[in-house]
């Protein structure tokens, strides 16, 4: 994308007036998207993005400049300006790059931009018609497809000179069921780290059926009761509870400034001893995986919690400087418009030994949260919330009637101690996590778990 001599000049210019680390991130991305409403293709778009971000660090201070203009003149000017705002005790030095290393975080078989839009449109039509046909009360469907091919180059004043290819494809189906004045939805959005073969391999009919089934079930469901109950949380997207309740508070962006409820607690029991939690960017081909992070650091598997004891944090370069340690490959960003910071990748509660059936059978009364929507958290207080999109009452150890409109709230550090059962059915679900450095693809995951007591917000006042 830029020749090494020009990059060396930029990195050197970025240290002219001050700074102890300089970095160039160049990105070229092609992407396409289509959407269909009620089976009719309503929009389709294809585009190119191209930009560069230059970062200079001095201790824990950082300067980040970004632009679409890749001319050498502009980049040298931006680099010098970045350096100027850190101009204390300049220690200018010449940067020379190591031989280039090419990573392949994605290993696509069929590049998605090489596939005709017509082929993608056919998948959306199939999904829509299948969901519509599921039940007479399915009144609307929407489906969409998106892909991207991104090539990045990162070089820094430590000599790192690397490229990477990231390719992702995603399919979404949303079904709406109408019963009188009541409308409810069901939704799935699986994503793949790879080429078009991922979408081709998806069981589109099953996903459409499942989305429609949830919509129909929820349209017929009564409101969820409110109060504090035991809640059994289903595998897969249920992992959003760990993501919100704990994961964000283990990121160096909040731990490093002492703002996290988990700061200073390494080696301490922060969860019940049935909980082992991991963030693993090295898993081959997973949605949140990468061979190098967005700061050219080769990532490690991060054991966050082992048998309830806090073992580690997610650390980017600046976080490492604040915490007096080394980065462990958690530096991520949406694109060149964001400076990187510590983020999750594939984050999950590890499998235990119980079956889902045993856990439900051992719960005399409570709620089974089968599918989740998103949520959010304040890492300083640990207060989190997340929405349940498919839920059932548990009565006498058996799944009973469906209930709709539930939200779970609590404090992460308290919930972790209240997890009392962990199943053996670990699964991942794909999401886009939004934080300081934009939206990045992350997997949430867990087996079926039970929380002994949590606040459930529903519309029904009594049981």
């Amino acid at each position, binding site marked *: 994308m830029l020749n090494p001599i020009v990059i060396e000049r930029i990195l050197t210019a970025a240290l002219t007036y001050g700074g102890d680390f300089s970095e160039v991130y160049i990105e070229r991305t092609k992407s396409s998207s289509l959407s269909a409403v009620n089976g009719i293709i309503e929009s389709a778009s294809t585009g190119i993005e191209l930009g560069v971000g230059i970062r200079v660090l001095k201790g824990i*201070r950082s300067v980040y400049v970004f632009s679409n203009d890749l001319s050498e003149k502009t980049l040298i000017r931006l680099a010098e300006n970045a350096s100027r705002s850190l101009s204390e005790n300049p220690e200018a030095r010449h940067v020379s790059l190591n031989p280039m290393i090419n990573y392949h975080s994605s290993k696509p078989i069929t590049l998605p931009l090489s596939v005709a839009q017509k082929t993608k449109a056919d998948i959306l039509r199939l999904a829509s018609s299948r969901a519509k046909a599921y039940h007479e009360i399915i009144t609307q469907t929407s489906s969409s497809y998106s892909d991207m091919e991104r090539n990045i180059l990162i070089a820094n004043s430590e000599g790192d000179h690397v490229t990477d290819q990231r390719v992702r494809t995603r399919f979404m189906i949303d079904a709406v069921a109408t019963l009188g004045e009541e409308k409810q939805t069901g939704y799935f959005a699986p994503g793949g780290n790879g080429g078009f073969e991922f979408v081709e391999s998806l069981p589109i009919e099953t996903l459409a059926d499942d989305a429609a089934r949830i919509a129909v079930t929820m349209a017929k469901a009564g409101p*969820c009761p409110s109060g504090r109950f035991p809640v059994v949380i289903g595998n897969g997207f249920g992992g959003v509870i760990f993501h919100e309740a704990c994961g964000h508070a283990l990121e160096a962006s909040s731990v490093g400034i002492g703002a996290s409820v988990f700061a200073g607690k390494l080696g301490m029991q922060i969860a019940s001893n049935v909980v082992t939690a991991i963030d693993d960017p090295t898993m081959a081909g997973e949605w949140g995986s990468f061979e190098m992070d967005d700061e050219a650091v080769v990532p490690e598997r991060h054991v966050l919690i082992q048998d309830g004891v806090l073992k580690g944090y997610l650390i980017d370069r600046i976080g490492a400087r604040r915490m007096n340690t080394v980065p462990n490959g958690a530096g991520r960003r949406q694109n060149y418009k964001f400076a990187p910071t510590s983020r999750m990748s594939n984050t999950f509660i590890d499998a235990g030994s119980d079956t889902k059936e045993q856990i439900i059978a051992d719960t005399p009364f409570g709620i089974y949260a089968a599918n989740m929507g998103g949520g959010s958290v304040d890492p300083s207080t640990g*207060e989190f*919330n997340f929405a349940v999109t498919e839920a059932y009452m548990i009565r006498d150890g058996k799944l009973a009637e469906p209930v709709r409109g539930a939200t779970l709230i609590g404090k992460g550090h308290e919930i972790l101690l209240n997890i009392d059962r962990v199943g053996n059915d670990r699964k991942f679900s794909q999401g886009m996590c939004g934080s300081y450095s934009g939206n990045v693809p992350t997997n949430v995951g867990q087996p079926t778990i039970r929380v002994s007591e949590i606040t459930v*917000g529903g519309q029904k006042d009594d049981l």
Partner: protein
Amino acid sequence: MSDRIDIPDPFIDQLLSRSPIAGFSESEVYFNGQESVQIQVHERKIVSFESSSTSGLSFRGRSAQQMGYSFTEVFDEGAESFLLEKARENSDVLETKEPETLFEGEKEYPATDNFSPELDKKDFDYFSKTALALEDAILKYDPRIVAVDDLFLSYGIGTQAIRNTLGLNCDSTHNILSVYASSRCVAEGQTKTGFCVWIGRDADTIDIAALAKESAEDSLSKLGAAPVRSGKYSVVLDARAAADLLTAFSGIFSADAVQKGFSLLAGKIGDKIASECVDIRDDGSHPASFLSFSFDSEGVATRNKQLIEKGTLLSYLHNRKTAATDGVASTGNGFRSGYKGSIDIAPTNLYFAPGKSSQNSLLKEMNNGLFIKYLIGLHAGANEISGDFSLSCEGFLVVDGRKDRPVDQITVSGNFFKLLQSVVAVADDLYFNPSEGAGIIGSPSLLIEGLTISGE
């Protein structure tokens, strides 16, 4: 502190002039350029400085009746053929029954005042001093304030331009300054966070002491918070929380959602859908908002519209396509979310019209109930299609018309369509939420009867 954003007119002119050869009967370019600086302060240092200059454009062209889209951040020969080829491929897969059409432009557009040359002259030193002074004032406000974890000051300029082969030629430029500062306090083992936000164009009106007080008091006032018992409560929803709730459900007014069956407002024009005191409007400009709109992303002039008057639904928000389907005129709400987006529908300044009472008189009228200051998790806990919401919230217990003690770890749930019918009183404190583009939403505080609270 910034050069003007260059619109790449030679590239645009050549692209439009070559589009007929590529098979387009009409075509259009939407350009968007942005420059920004952002300062982050932590522990009395500028820990992060960001500066950017980016731009991109969208091409859309009509071929065999359908409008295909493509976009680029590169303006060269290669990009030109990419745009034409991809837009053509995309138009070929579309099946819309009422396809998009282009617009030749209005004779006149309402004037807007979205650019302050004085603000544009402010320099790095000014911004740094303001940001450092604000952190200092928050930290010194009270010994229980232990940290300001997030303090950002951002200045941005945005330019948009629309050109098409029918002669449409619209430009606009705005600048805006925003300041956000959190605060974290600790007392008796409890940690609470709060924040303040300022957005505007007249930097000289930034009152550091007042902002510091807002952020610090926001967190300090939460100390000692505890849940309340589950049950039905009357609620005064603070203006900002009410604006957040209206934001989550603003899509119900989109004619596109109505026509496709995604809005429960379908078929309800002329019906009484809300209580007598509910007026909802969408105005291209409003003195309490910080951004006004002269035209939408299709070049249609914005207008002032009454969507709900005294509880009766009068209109939806339209773009040219949905207006053609319904046989009405576009309301000037055909907006894109940027050059990567296609024409959709968004409000300009959408708001609950204010009443005449103060927030305090609403609390007195309620007498006993809850004052909800924040609704949390709206992106997940509110279902725009069903109207159901179940949200984490924070506020105060209200006893005998006064805020008694802070409340946290509770949820409020209900249904937005039912809530519209349960609004009993509307205060005079209209507040517009900060937003980066079209879709600025505002509300005054509202008194609402009978919301379900889940707590102890």
